[in-house]
């Protein structure tokens, strides 16, 4: 009798306990889902607003002409688009070779003390505030030459770019099976031939992914360009004059107190986001199903993530 009562008591206690735990579980689930929604809303809002406001500003004229007089709402962002292409192209010319060779060093010769410290500092350098790199470029190029220079801007962007490429190249090369290298060696090929012709050929997809993502990353950089290429409203003249770039133009336009300038700012933002998102989404859509490149993206997520 007594036993039965106790059992019932335990059962009700158990039920209460389970009920409470299940409710807590439900509440946590709701909180987690609202976290996800809270992160998606800004993304959706940014993309929607840029598209909605930007599309009204876009025209052939807007894309090709120099900016009109301040506040007039005429003209376009032609020099900015041209400038972004030039400075990103130049930065890639400097950053890609250094990054790739640095990645080769880390993967093929990096199994020693020097390699480990390079890897570590590479990862730390990746997180340097980009504005500090801009100041560095200002100090060693602009201050020495005595004028703003496209080289300085490209150099600053290359500094942001090369550690990313080094890291992704290293990981792609490491994923090439050691047997490929051994097969090359067994044919009597030199190490550099093996690396450049066999290993890189096998790893090129991951490397290209890393390079393109780093291009997308530097395309949106503003801070290091402020003190290196300054911004201008004319088309590119030569390497030793100030030049415009899309992020700089957006910044300028957003600071102006005119509605027309703001509208042009949105238009420039749409062009910029179109380029950057195009690279990002395109690459991911192309490589999403491939295992090796997924691995690269994973490493990028861990180490790169975003801009500063």
């Amino acid at each position: 009798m007594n036993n039965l009562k106790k059992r019932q008591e335990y059962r009700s206690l158990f039920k209460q306990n389970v009920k409470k735990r299940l409710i807590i579980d439900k509440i946590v689930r709701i909180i987690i889902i609202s976290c996800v929604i809270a992160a998606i809303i800004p993304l959706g809002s940014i993309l929607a607003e840029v598209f909605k406001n930007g599309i009204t500003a876009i025209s052939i004229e807007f894309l090709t002409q120099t900016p009109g007089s301040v506040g007039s709402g005429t003209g376009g962002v032609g020099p900015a688009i041209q400038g972004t292409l030039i400075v990103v192209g130049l930065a890639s010319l400097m950053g890609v070779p250094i990054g790739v060779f640095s990645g080769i060093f880390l993967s093929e010769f990096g199994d020693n003390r020097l390699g480990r410290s390079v890897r570590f500092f590479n990862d730390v350098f990746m997180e340097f505030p980009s504005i500090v790199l801009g100041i560095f470029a200002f100090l060693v190029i602009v201050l020495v030459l005595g004028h703003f220079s496209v080289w300085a801007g490209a150099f600053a962007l290359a500094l942001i770019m090369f550690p990313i490429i080094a890291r992704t190249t290293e990981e792609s090369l490491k994923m090439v099976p050691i047997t490929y290298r051994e097969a090359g060696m067994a044919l009597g090929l030199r190490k550099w031939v093996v690396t450049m012709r066999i290993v890189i050929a096998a790893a090129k997809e991951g490397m290209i992914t890393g390079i393109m993502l780093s291009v997308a990353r530097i395309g949106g950089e503003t801070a290091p360009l402020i003190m290196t290429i300054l911004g201008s409203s004319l088309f590119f003249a030569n390497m030793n004059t100030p030049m415009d770039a899309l992020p700089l133009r957006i910044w300028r336009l957003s600071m102006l107190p005119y509605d027309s300038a703001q509208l042009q700012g949105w238009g420039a933002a749409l062009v910029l986001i179109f380029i950057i998102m195009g690279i990002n989404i395109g690459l991911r859509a192309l490589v999403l199903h491939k295992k090796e490149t997924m691995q690269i993206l994973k490493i990028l997520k861990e180490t790169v993530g975003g801009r500063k």
Partner: protein
Amino acid sequence: MEKILSKQNDRRFDSDKIFKMGATLAGCFVLIVIVLLVFQLITQSYPIWEEEGLSFIVGTDWNAADGRESFGALPYIVGTLVTSTLAMIIGVPLSIGIAMFISDAPKKIGVPLGFLIELLAAVPSIIYGLWGMYVFRGFFLDMIEKPLHNTFGDSIWLFSGTPFGLDIFTASIILAVMIIPTVSSVAREVMKAVPQQQKEAAYMLGATKWEMFKLAIFPYSKTGLIGASILGLGRAVGETMAVTMLIGNATGINAIPESLFDPSQTMSSIIANEFIEASPAGLHLPALIGVALVLLCIAIVINVIAHLLVTRMLKVKEGSINT
């Protein structure tokens, strides 16, 4: 025959040596740049250390006018720390929630969702700034800041300032959104590193999903999660453009915020705002470079700590237990 072989060997030796040297040089480039960078920052900011000494770090006045030059970086250091800390308080729980959702969701939902979250990282900082200034600010001012100020303005000092929209609160929220992709993707990797057996063991004890996270995943991945958050802090500290556009750009003593609705200034935003106007002849430029040096030191310390924590966590082999 022997001669030909040895000749060939010699050549092989040479070209490989050059290749290795080239690669090593490229690898060492990063070390050279870091050394040069720190050296340049120190030498170029030397005048300000000589002039102001320690009061450059603890001083609060900021005057670039000729003859009355006086520079103290404390307000901007405070501004940076306050905004980044606020961003962490808002952003880290959100990111960990997202990481929990994605690590637990079926692949069909998890992969596209993870992709969407990463797109947040692809949006350039300047566009966050533009959006924050023209879209988010109006909404936030009317829907959140004003009601908060009207209800709690008198009783809680945090909400006492007059809301204007360009203040540390707005800037911190945008920063929080910007660190979400970093923190949540690292947190996800860290949670994935928890061995399946641990999760199964928790389920076997009758744990609900939340209890499984509490029992199995959080204790195991604690170090990594802390590392992920600190990595986010590093991002927030170095962030420039969006903050510059939203923080209200106060200078000097005014930049020390007294409430959430006060305008302020961070180290990176004062550089972005004033660098071009600073003349290399006076003390203004060395002062800004000094600010950059302080910023770099803080960023390096934060990132080295985060890096060590995260790699330690991700290196843990399956099956070993790390509490």
